[in-house]
């Protein structure tokens, strides 16, 4: 049973991050995901300090506020003439460092382990259960990331055509009256939520891999956005399952193994993708030469 919970948590983390990551990649904002995943740290710490507990809700709110603040700061810096990559670099390191300082200052008051924040520990997930009245509802992490996953699916499902147009052609989207900036913040808000919900399981560093790698894998395999969205979730789920097996076999970190499998899947599609893979390209060149 515990095995199942761990794999389910990993799969939900990978699927929601992969799904949202597609839009990050398509808007060439993969590094913004990186920034958000680090910059939510001070939000979480402040939420701990204010609420004095490890309750889910204050944590989510703290992370969301910090994530949106990151996006806002990057946007503002960029608009006043700082290059995007520099703006991202400055903003998230500044916020992350505040988080690190806060953790080290209040380490007595808050039961928050920096190692856990950075690397996560998915193996503990099954024991941290949610008690509803007297009932044991199963691991808290599953509910949390599951909720975020459903919320992401619902949001993108409802606003699919708006989000697609904002990603492909923001100028046209603005011209027909779609609030481009609102959707930008909406997506980044979801990324912040997914990040914080994935935090305890895979940690701040590997969450970036989950945001970028499955989506990049899916991008190589298809020319259709809906297919890409499904493939990214599939690649994520496969990484979670395969990663767990790998970790038990090697007796290593589960989150690390999941990411390694995600990387392996990317490598496979990079080499063998039917249209964009190295093999397909080499074959096409060869055909061309002989004709």
């Amino acid at each position, binding site marked *: 049973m515990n095995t199942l919970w761990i794999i389910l948590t990993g799969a939900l983390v990978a699927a929601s991050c992969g799904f949202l990551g597609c839009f990050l990649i*398509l808007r*060439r904002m993969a590094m913004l995901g990186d920034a958000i995943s680090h910059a939510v740290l001070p939000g979480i710490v402040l939420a701990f300090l204010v609420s004095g507990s490890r309750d889910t809700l204050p944590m989510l709110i703290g992370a969301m506020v910090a994530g949106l603040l990151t996006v806002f700061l990057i946007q503002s810096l960029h608009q006043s*003439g700082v290059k995007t990559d520099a703006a991202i670099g400055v903003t998230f390191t500044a916020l992350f460092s505040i988080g690190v300082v806060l953790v080290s200052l209040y380490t007595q008051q808050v039961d928050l382990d920096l190692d856990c924040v950075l690397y996560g520990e998915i193996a503990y997930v099954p024991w941290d259960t949610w008690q509803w009245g007297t009932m044991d509802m199963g691991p808290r992490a599953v509910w949390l990331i599951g909720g975020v996953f459903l919320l992401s699916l619902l949001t993108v499902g*409802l606003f*699919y*055509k*708006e989000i*697609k*147009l904002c*990603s*492909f*052609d923001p*100028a*046209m989207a*603005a*011209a*027909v*009256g*779609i609030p481009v900036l609102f959707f930008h913040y909406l997506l980044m808000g979801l990324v912040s939520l997914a990040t914080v919900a994935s935090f305890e399981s895979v940690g701040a560093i590997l969450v970036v891999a989950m945001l970028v790698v499955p989506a990049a894998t899916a*991008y190589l395999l*298809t*020319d*259709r*956005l809906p*297919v*890409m969205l499904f493939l990214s979730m599939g690649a994520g789920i496969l990484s979670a399952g395969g990663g767990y097996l790998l970790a038990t076999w090697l007796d290593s970190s589960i989150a690390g193994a999941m990411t390694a499998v995600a990387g392996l899947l990317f490598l496979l599609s990079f080499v063998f993708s039917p249209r964009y893979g190295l093999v397909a390209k080499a074959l096409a060149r060869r055909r061309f030469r002989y004709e």
Partner: protein
Amino acid sequence: MKGISNASPLTVHDLTVAYQKKPVLRNVSLTIPEGKLIGIIGPNGAGKSTLIKAIQGLVPVASGQTQIYGKPYKQQRKLVGYVPQRETVDWDFPTNALDVVLMGRYGKLGWFRRPGKHDRQLSLQCLQKVGMSDYADRQISQLSGGQQQRVFLARALAQEAQLYFMDEPFAGVDAATEKAIIQLLTELKVQQKTVLVVHHDLQTVEEYFDWVIMLNRRIIAAGPTQEVFTTENLHKTYGGRLQHLGAVLSSSPDAVLPEEEPL
């Protein structure tokens, strides 16, 4: 059609646009007649693209008003079609030609509704009009530059607008695409639509456009092509940069262009 009164398709009153304090457009005022093909010409940095973006509220405006058929743009979005510069989007986006044309329907559909059968049929017709019906299922990165431009035009057609803004549709396209665009413009004119085209090639201005707006941060001249497309106005618009003016006006093929096409 709903929302159309006797008012002019587009009036611009005292429009000023500034990027970081430096004015790009200064005190631009215009009244555009209905059913004309209108070229917007001027040197690089004259604010041609900025003008059509400012009218559609895509760049912040320092002062001034614009009206589409007598009302503010925000109330009249559905009457306006837009063809942005081809380079502004990522053509590696995972989608096909028909899907891009369908995006032209999004404005009319409103929230939560998905494009239906009617929208698909209309979009296919629009692709046909630009000679691209064979490429409906083609991934957009697999299209040539000219074909991509035609997909963009088809998307604007799918918007079923009354007033069109096109940002350099002729830039870097092949002969077939150029012909397709001209055919399309002629058809739009027959349907009494008004089309504003940002244009670079001075040699073809007289051939393509009934009306011309000559712009260099302010309006130099605007009116029927025969009246305002004169040596004197070209000098005023392009300053010393235009050296082969006589050649341009006589449409000689070896006339030297006053500027490089931006890549």
